[in-house]
């Protein structure tokens, strides 16, 4: 049976994954491959006085030891080129690579790495609190010489890696005439991506080229990073993908790949770098910790007439993707609900002596919406208005604009989402039926689909199957193994198993923006639809000749071309493809797609690098929680998601993304504290102390999809994957606030926070 859009199909990678046959990054093996162990800084900050590798070199089976002296004199970085592969004269975070030991076996490499002696004159580490206060040493004394990768620099100085500032007129006046002023301060901890497969990469160097095999989410970004850091051309690097054991953003940039490339270059061997779980945690570009203050002026009718927002974000020791994210508050805070006046915003990204932070599903949207929605509850309570009612009164409508001047044409979907939620989970009924220690939270958001380009080539084989060649990759979401496969198969009238996707290879497939920002099914899917439509046209033309019928009378069904209305006049697609191949040429087509730029107000702020939400989506979440008054534990007992999907391509995949996003969001909101000590070291350093929620801690999430097709993407699909996590902390924190009558300003809300609040409340009573 032909695959259909909106129908179910098995993931093409499912059997291999379940039977253990899938080849992940850690499984890659090459003849003559050697293994690397990384010598890392034991301290967060200091002057690197010396690295003695003599003893390590003499250890058994050691191939070579690589130090900073062996690396090219070049810098790299996704947004700002502030990184090198190995620390040279300074160490900037605990776990920073200092040397690479290469040996015949992994055990020998690890043993020899332990014999490398590192001498460091330790300095007092700079944490974010110190950086904000202007204390401590300048972590990058050469900051002024760093080159922005895309040519445009942004305001930065000393330990401030990026400052975004919006200073519209009239803010002070709004506060001066306010009937009420509501202010809140929030903090958020880091969150570890905690995928199953720790990072791994294998590199070889031959004939002037680097070849990397790695389970990366973004092969072309890794290619760029390796090229920058090794000081070579982009085309001198080839990146070949492997099955990804999860990434959630942490495998978008090149972290282990440059280490492997450098080691391969210096030793002349194929080298595999594979992190232990402990190393992976210690060095992972986690979702950043942040502090926020949000202050709103209200007039006597309860309308929001002015706002001030500040956000301090922890960049860690190097920037990675982070300078982009410093502008995201402008598109979140002040969107969704109408702000009838100006907003002053200052967002700063701080260098600290901690591991670099980075992308994690939903990026800073998770804590920004948590702040905005808790603040909305605070405002509603101040005004004595029901929380849902207040939100509905001030909800965005079609054509309302965010603080960057982006017009949200379909923002009216928000009201539709509230309505559908009301059908599913009537607000008053929930309030009336809450049990003891229970509370309900409600939250709304606009989110985006990453606009980066993607390319798809479809090739018909003479057996009637289709190859889908793309550098878009499946990080586990099903975006390729279901989404793209489904689009191609349904367009060509093929059955399950008749479309095979290639692994990404930067030498073979066109540029792809990586598996990030919910983009693959919507954006690459547009290219896939276009390429398969072209292939379809070629098949129809050839089949028309074979069947002696008019092109318009032919349909492709179940792997056959047939004349509509006469089921006996058919020809298998294999025969059509073979006929074409040996006459006019093979049946193949390539298409690429990138989201057109979205207009915005260029004068809205200084330093803003990321100014719009492309292919916007709209969401409303509701959470019911129960607080355990013995332990302070919070249990999420009900969770409802109403999500605008544009068009659901793969219902199983879409549902899975929502369930998984909420699971991760519950982790973020209640369990996963990755704390940073005053000494700038991570407090939670293993999965024993870093508490990921378990299946038993997660409710079965109720999902309602809205289908308001996007006018630009091929099938009207919008991004699905990121959005579910974006509102989780907002919905859960407001529910805990309702259950306890207390505001919890720090995410995650831990049992300790709740317990001490309960105790305080008892003492007052």
């Amino acid at each position, binding site marked *: 049976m032909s695959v259909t859009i909106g129908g179910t199909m098995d993931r093409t990678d499912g059997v291999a994954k379940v039977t253990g046959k899938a080849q992940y990054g850690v499984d890659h093996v090459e003849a003559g491959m050697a293994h690397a162990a990384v010598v890392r800084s034991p301290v967060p900050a200091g002057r690197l006085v010396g690295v003695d590798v003599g003893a390590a070199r003499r250890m058994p089976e050691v191939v070579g030891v690589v130090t900073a002296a062996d690396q090219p004199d070049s810098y790299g970085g996704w947004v700002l080129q502030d990184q090198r592969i190995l620390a040279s004269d300074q160490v900037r975070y605990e776990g920073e690579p200092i040397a690479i030991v290469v040996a015949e076996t992994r055990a020998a490499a690890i043993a020899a790495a332990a014999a490398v002696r590192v001498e460091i004159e330790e300095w007092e580490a700079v944490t974010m609190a110190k950086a904000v206060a202007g204390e401590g040493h300048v972590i990058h004394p050469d900051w002024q010489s760093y080159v922005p990768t895309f040519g445009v620099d942004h305001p930065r100085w000393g330990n401030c890696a990026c400052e975004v500032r919006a200073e519209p007129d009239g803010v002070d006046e709004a506060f001066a005439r306010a009937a009420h002023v509501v202010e809140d301060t929030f903090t958020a901890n880091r969150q570890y991506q905690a995928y199953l497969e720790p990072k791994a990469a294998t590199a070889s160097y031959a004939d002037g080229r680097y070849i990397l095999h790695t389970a990366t989410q973004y092969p072309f970004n890794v290619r760029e990073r390796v090229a920058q850091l090794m000081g070579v051309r982009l085309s001198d690097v080839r990146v070949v993908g492997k099955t990804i054991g999860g990434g959630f953003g942490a495998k978008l940039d090149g972290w282990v790949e440059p280490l492997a490339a450098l080691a391969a270059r210096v030793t002349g061997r194929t080298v595999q770098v594979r992190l232990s779980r402990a190393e992976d945690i210690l060095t992972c570009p986690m979702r950043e910790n942040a502090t926020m203050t949000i202050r709103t002026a209200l007039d006597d009718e309860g309308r929001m007439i002015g706002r001030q927002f500040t956000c301090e974000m922890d960049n860690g020791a190097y920037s990675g993707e982070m300078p982009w994210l410093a502008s995201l508050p402008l598109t979140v805070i002040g969107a969704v609900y109408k702000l009838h006046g100006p907003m002053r915003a200052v967002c700063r990204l701080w260098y600290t002596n901690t591991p670099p932070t980075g992308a994690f599903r939903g990026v800073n949207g998770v804590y920004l919406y948590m702040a905005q929605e808790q603040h909305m509850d605070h405002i509603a309570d101040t005004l004595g208005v029901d929380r849902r009612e207040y939100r509905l009164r001030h909800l965005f409508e079609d054509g309302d604009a965010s603080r960057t001047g982006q017009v949200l044409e379909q923002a009216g979907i928000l009201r539709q989402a509230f309505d559908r939620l009301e059908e599913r989970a009537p607000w008053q009924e929930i309030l009336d039926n809450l049990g003891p220690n229970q509370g309900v939270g409600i939250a709304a958001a606009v989110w985006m689909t990453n606009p980066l380009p993607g390319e798809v080539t479809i090739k018909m084989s003479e057996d009637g199957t289709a190859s889908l060649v793309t550098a878009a990759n499946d990080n586990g979401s099903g975006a390729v193994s279901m989404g793209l496969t489904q689009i191609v198969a349904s367009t060509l009238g093929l059955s399950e198993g008749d479309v095979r996707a290639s692994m990404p290879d930067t030498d073979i497939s066109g540029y792809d923006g990586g598996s990030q920002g919910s983009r693959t099914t919507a954006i690459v899917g547009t290219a896939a639809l276009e390429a398969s439509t072209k292939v379809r046209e070629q098949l129809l033309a050839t089949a028309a000749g074979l069947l002696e019928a008019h092109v318009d009378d032919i349909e492709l069904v179940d792997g056959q071309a047939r004349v509509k209305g006469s089921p006996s006049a058919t020809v298998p697609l294999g025969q059509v493809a073979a006929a074409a191949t040996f006459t006019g040429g093979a049946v193949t087509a390539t298409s690429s797609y990138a989201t057109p730029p979205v207009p915005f107000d260029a004068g809205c702020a200084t330093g803003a690098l990321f100014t719009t939400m492309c292919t916007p989506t709209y969401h409303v979440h509701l959470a019911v929680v129960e607080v355990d008054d013995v332990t302070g534990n919070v249990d999420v007992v009900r969770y409802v998601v109403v999500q605008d999907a544009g068009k659901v391509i793969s219902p199983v995949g879409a549902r899975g993304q929502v369930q998984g996003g909420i699971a991760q969001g519950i982790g973020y909101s209640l369990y996963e504290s990755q704390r940073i000590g005053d000494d700038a070291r991570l407090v939670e350093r293993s999965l024993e*102390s870093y508490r990921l929620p*378990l299946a038993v801690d997660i409710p079965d999430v109720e999902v309602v999809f809205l289908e308001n097709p996007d006018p630009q993407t091929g099938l009207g699909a919008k991004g699905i994957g990121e959005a579910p996590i974006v509102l989780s902390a907002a919905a859960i924190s407001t529910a805990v606030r309702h259950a306890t009558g207390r505001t919890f300003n720090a995410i995650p809300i831990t049992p300790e926070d709740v317990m*001490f609040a309960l105790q305080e409340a008892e003492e007052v009573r």
Partner: protein
Amino acid sequence: MQSPVRFHSATTFEEVVDALDELGSEARLIAGGTDVMIQLARGELSPQVLLHIERVPGLGTVAAGEGGLHLGALVTHAMVRSDPATCALAALADAARQVGGWQTQAIGTVVGNIVNASPAADLTPGLLVHDAMVHLSRRGSERTLPLDQFVKGRRETAREPQELVTGITIAPTPEHSGEAFVKVGRRKAMEVSIVAVATRLVVDPSTGTIADARVAVGAVSPIPHRAPASEQLLIGQRPTADLFAAAGRAALEGADPIDDVRASRRYRLAVLPRAVAQALSRSSDHVDAARSVA
């Protein structure tokens, strides 16, 4: 590099006690291995031999006998939660149900749990409530110790290196009793207890007052222990929420919890009285439930 550990899987009791006699502390007994393997991986143990006892016959049963219920050394947590003789003993069965996850329960043993002597060993409080006796054997001799004399400190027991623990006996459960286990952890499974409490109440049906009270707490001091101050407060009183709250507060006497990455000392001290009160209230409910069935 350290020399590799030899693994020997014994098939008879004699083989085990002989090997222990010969090797003493150079032999490390391994039952389910859920503690041993982790400690080996962390480099905390370096025995010459891992002496595996899972195939030794006669150690894997729960049997009612003289002096109470006998749990052999190979009785697992999964057996405790499902065996008809133990599944009704909530102080034990609810603890067994919450040791790690199903995998841990399927292979982890109760004896391994107490010999490992973690301050947070989940079965210990329930066993203390049941007056458990520990049976030890070595070549040519045997002895029995009350559990509270067997566990001596964090990872420290009265066991001699030559001794095998063959099993545990718990005293017969009195009539009109009800018991409970409360575990405090951040998740619903796979947690090292932040606080663990086992309680048992015996209520005199003629007076409605508490005839006997047992309160045992884990993870709040180096050794899980009974809380005599709480117990004394309860005996002779009618079960009420206020009484249980007071008994909970009394359990703070003797509690000296640590401050670690899992939970602060302050939190453990805040939770302990509440967990004790909750366990007592559940125990009391169980007495009532037993009475209404009878």
